[in-house]
């Protein structure tokens, strides 16, 4: 057993629901008790979906257990087919049904429905949501392509006579409830158009079963969300020899790499996209106001791909210092470890919320990039935060256009990350007027409006950056403590940390005003 207060990912059948809900004409029947219908609200409330997820639950009860639960599966599948007339069905189970072993997938396959039936076996006691989404997408694509008559499957035009034809790409991975997938699809279409590539199929988001049959017509696949589409892209590569563009184009550098990768695969000339500076991020980052961003301490946590992308943007494009990095996704652990190594950090691979909270408190970052969970942690610790990865809440499905990928995505990222930080002139003013009452420690940056500011100042004492660390060896003399409080609050944590480290190394048991300034000189850059 594993103790969980909050969970980053739902169970694997919720991943399968995300695939079914993304598609336009697939219906998913889940053998599950009534309470599992809660998952509908993820789509209708968090994503504000206008339709119910195309999902039917058997909602068996205790009194059904001795009886014919298998019969219930069949009736439910038949009723769902008759009512919704989907072009394909996925049939599976949730954790409870896994224990009663009715094998709903095989039962449904034996029913001779006139549409493809994709059985899903997603072990609920060892796997999680993203894995479930990835497997379901793979099973669906494979099932449709492997079982359709050959003349219904689109084939790839001979690359040799591609003269004059623009290369065709599939964009795979965007999914319902994915982070900014809706806008990323629009942005990636714009980018590909600029590069000179036409989009063949986008899946699973808004795709039909018929679209899946068109997948083999593309010259290559873009694996936009590796968490969801990696397995499928690998299979397509093996089966249809479609190369995969694996770089996720989040951030300016990654977007340029992405374009270069396409250039290499297709041989087209993408200089139009490569040479013009199409994002405002580089100039905004070079402009003097951004000087104050230099070396801001950053903690990054989330799914794999957004974390890896964020680490690169942080270091190369904003000159932040990443002080902690990790993911809840075991499937993406290898990529995140590699990114961590490049930063000379050890990756935090955990889905235990308490571990993440502890790591953030210890790292004392000035900005946290994370999921909705890290937003809560950061709020409690009084640290600014920006959300970069699912799982997210309703406010992270903004009404405005806010992609993450491509050049516009980089602009959005610049604004989203920089806004929570105390910026430029404002920081100067805070420093100059720090003794004025308006600028006391309780005054949060003015852009942290009412709610957030209040939460920051209410943050419990023991874990905020400017409070004595419980296990700090050197003790502060009252004078030094007084002096420390004169240092502006947004750098005080760093000053405390450096001074304590200095005192420890120098073997000072007590920290005096002297020690404080010795440390300051020691760490001066």
């Amino acid at each position: 057993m594993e103790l969980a207060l909050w969970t980053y990912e739902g169970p694997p059948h919720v991943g399968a629901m995300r695939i079914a809900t993304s598609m336009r004409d697939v219906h998913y029947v889940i053998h599950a008790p009534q309470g599992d219908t809660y998952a509908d609200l993820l789509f209708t409330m968090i994503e504000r979906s206008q339709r119910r997820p195309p999902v039917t639950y058997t909602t068996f009860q205790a009194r059904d257990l001795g009886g014919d639960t298998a019969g219930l599966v069949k009736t439910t599948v038949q009723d769902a087919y008759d009512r919704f007339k989907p072009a394909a069905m996925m049939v599976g189970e949730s954790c409870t049904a896994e224990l009663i072993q009715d094998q709903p997938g095989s039962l449904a396959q034996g029913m001779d429905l006139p549409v493809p039936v994709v059985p899903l076996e997603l072990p609920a006691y060892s796997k999680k949501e993203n894995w479930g989404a990835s497997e379901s997408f793979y099973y669906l694509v494979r099932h449709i392509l492997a079982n359709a008559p050959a003349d219904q499957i689109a084939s790839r035009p001979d690359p040799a006579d591609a003269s004059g034809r623009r290369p065709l790409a599939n964009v795979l991975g965007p999914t319902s409830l994915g982070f900014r997938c809706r806008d990323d699809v629009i942005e990636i279409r714009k980018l590909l158009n600029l590069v000179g590539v036409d989009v063949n199929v986008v899946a699973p988001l808004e795709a039909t079963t018929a679209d899946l049959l068109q997948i083999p017509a593309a010259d290559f696949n873009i694996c936009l969300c590796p968490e969801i589409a990696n397995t499928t892209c690998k299979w397509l590569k093996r089966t249809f020899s479609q190369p995969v563009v694996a770089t996720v184009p989040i951030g300016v550098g990654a977007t340029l790499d992405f374009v270069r990768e396409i250039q290499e695969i297709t041989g087209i000339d993408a200089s139009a996209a490569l040479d013009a500076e199409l994002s405002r991020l580089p100039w905004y980052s070079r402009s003097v106001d951004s000087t104050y961003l230099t070396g801001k301490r950053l903690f990054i946590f989330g799914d794999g791909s957004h974390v890896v992308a964020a680490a690169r943007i942080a270091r190369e494009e904003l000159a932040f210092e990443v002080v902690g990095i990790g993911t809840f996704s075991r499937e993406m652990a290898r990529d995140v470890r590699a990114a961590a190594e490049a930063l000379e950090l050890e990756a935090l691979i955990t889905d235990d919320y308490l571990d993440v909270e502890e790591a953030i408190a210890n790292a004392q970052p000035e900005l946290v990039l994370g999921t909705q969970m890290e937003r809560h942690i950061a709020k409690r610790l009084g640290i600014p935060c920006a959300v970069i990865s699912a799982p997210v809440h309703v406010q992270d499905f903004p009404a405005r256009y806010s992609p993450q990928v491509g050049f516009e995505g980089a602009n959005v990222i610049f604004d989203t990350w920089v806004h929570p930080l105390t910026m430029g002139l404002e920081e100067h003013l805070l420093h100059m007027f720090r003794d004025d009452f308006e600028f006391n420690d309780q005054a949060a940056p003015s852009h942290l409006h009412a709610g957030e500011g209040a939460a920051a100042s209410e943050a419990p004492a023991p874990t905020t950056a400017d409070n004595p660390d419980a296990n700090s060896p050197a003790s502060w003399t009252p004078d030094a403590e007084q002096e420390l409080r004169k240092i502006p609050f947004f750098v005080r944590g760093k000053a405390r940390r450096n001074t304590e480290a200095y005192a420890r190394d120098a073997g000072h048991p007590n920290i005096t005003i002297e020690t404080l300034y010795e440390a300051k000189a020691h760490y001066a850059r």
Partner: protein
Amino acid sequence: MSSATLCDIPVTLERGQREVFCGLTGIVWLHRKMQDAFFLVVGSRTCAHLLQSAAGVMIFSEPRFATAIMQEKDLAGMADANDELDRIVERLLSRRPDIKTLFLVGSCPSEVIKLDLGRAAQRLSVAYNGQVRVLSYSGSGIETTFTEGEDTCLETMVRAAPQTDEQQLLVVGTLPDVVEDQLERLLDACGITEAAGKLAFFPPRRAETIPAIGPKTRFLLAQPFLNATRRALIGQGAVHIPALFPFGVEGTSAWLHSAARAFDVRKERVDTACAAPVARARKALEHYRHTLQGKTLWFMPDSQLEIPLARFLASECGMQLLEIGVPYLDQQTLSVELPALPENSGIVEGQDVDKQLERLHQATPDLVVCGLGLANPLEAQGVTSKWSIELVFSPIHGFEQVGDLAELFARPLQRKLKLAV
């Protein structure tokens, strides 16, 4: 579908897909009420996910509930699962020395593998002798529906309650503290507390101090879903005072009058004590009556508050009831409520969500009370909705909340009138 007749109200039974939370959801409000208690679900990742989805945005990072998520290896052997549970409980309690009562909450997976949480609770209670009391109940979706999780929790607490021979009045059902205080003042003012000898609320604000129960205990239900709790109380010798539930002016008045009769308190005394709050409540209700009057209303089966709320909305707000869906119906608990419904009310017990939605679209109600999974899709089709979950989180009982209760239903209708987009 089959039909039964009850107090001249036809009840249609329906079976099919249900679209309703399981009893684990009750933890979301129970843990706020009893601040010294911790709720540990023994279940799966689904259970953990349900809880956090139902709880919505949580601003406290360490809530007093958690899930012991079973893994592949726990399913292999029973001894294993019990050892694992002990280990988890130890880790939990060492982190939270403030916890005095621990509820082990059963889920579908724990029940299907027949993990005996009752025995585990006994074993752990002995192990933490004196420090922590460990109790268990089922919140599983195969046994319980939404608010029924509170029922099973309170049932367990009743069984754990000490015995007493003292005469007292017990008010049973989780209420926000502010409502409890209001009701307490009213019961005092009516002279009911004095006549009863003692007044206690159940569940208590601290799980540590479960009120004693005995043959001289008489109890009023404050929530209409406490069927098992009612039976358990009767099993301990307590006597139920059947009454309307304290929703609306009529409901709250009748609730107090029933208690007064039970303790031989003069009716006039109650009328006098209620005069001012009743007048206030009527005035507050007036603000919303014109919005609700004559509007048609449809309940999807959900919180089990449907019947008393339907009664209030029909008789005090003038709404017209089209269909009252209830997940299940206990005629005993609702014995006073059912006859108070308008004669032609259509009650549907159980659910086949797709068929029900078909009927709904044919009936085109002005307002639908439903769960979170259905609200936006209905709105997108032009049907105005009210989320039922708000009804279990908001203070809606008693005179002082009559206006707020009506407002919850009036707001979506008024909003629809205001919006020009």
